[in-house]
């Protein structure tokens, strides 16, 4: 592979990252070729020593995706990190998907229950006092308030659990592509 070929494949593989990041990475590798040439090595030799540019690009992209998730825990960054890890083949989809689906389904179920609890609490809070309940209007009022507070609390717990889950997936993916994947690839 020639230097131009290596660089263009690397550049293609990095598409989607910020322009400055791509320019930075490309400049690093251009400098590597230049230094190697000064040391009397051929382009083909250096390209072979650097390894597969597609894989290199995938690794750099995955790292960028994980970094964004760690900096800001937003749903789009979570999706980005997962997609990057999938691209790397670091997440074994066949193994992980059913598991992940199950957990996500359970989380969604809890979310629905929390929302229902909040609405129910709101209903008791608003309508209860007018319907002459057993414990008097104040009791209905307080029960409604209590139910809504409980729903808010559970909602916060649910958010924490979801963030924790994605952290776990990211951690697993990282472990996989840092340690296991390179080892498997080279055997």
């Amino acid at each position: 592979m020639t230097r131009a070929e290596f660089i263009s494949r690397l550049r293609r593989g990095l598409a989607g990252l910020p322009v400055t990041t791509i320019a930075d990475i490309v400049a690093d590798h251009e400098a590597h070729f230049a230094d190697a040439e000064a040391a009397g090595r051929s382009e083909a030799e250096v390209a072979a020593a650097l390894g597969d540019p597609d894989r290199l690009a995938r690794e750099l992209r995955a790292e960028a995706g994980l970094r964004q998730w760690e900096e800001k825990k937003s749903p789009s960054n979570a999706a980005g990190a997962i997609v990057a890890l999938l691209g790397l083949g670091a997440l074994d989809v066949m193994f992980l998907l059913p598991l992940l689906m199950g957990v996500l389904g359970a989380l969604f179920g809890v979310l629905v229950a929390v929302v229902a609890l909040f609405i129910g609490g709101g209903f008791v809070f608003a309508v209860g006092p007018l319907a002459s309940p057993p414990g008097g209007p104040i009791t209905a009022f307080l029960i409604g308030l209590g139910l809504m507070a409980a729903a808010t609390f559970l909602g916060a717990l649910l958010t924490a659990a979801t963030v924790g889950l994605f952290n776990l997936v990211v951690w697993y993916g990282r472990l996989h592509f840092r340690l296991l994947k390179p080892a498997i690839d080279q055997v």
Partner: protein
Amino acid sequence: MPETIEIQLKKGVLALCVLALLSRADSYAYEIASRLTKDIDMGEGTIYPLMRRMQSDGLVETYLVESQSGPPRKYYRLTNAGRRSFEQQKAEWAAFSNAVNDIVGAAA
């Protein structure tokens, strides 16, 4: 599979080796890569993702040095956090490798 163990060991100590090289003198990626390739037979390509990771972890920082030929060269130096991390990892490595040597040596 001895190859697998060897590769995992190298991956694990690569960051430590880079920190050690930079603790002696500032350097640029090609120089670091050549040194690591020569001494511990690492793939040259692994250096760039590693340097980016270390930079965003705040262990190293870069500066440009004008060169007589070609564009300015990007040098890496350790930050204070990098220096602390090196001292800590060095101590861990010494303790770990001593323990392993004792066991492996005793078995021989």
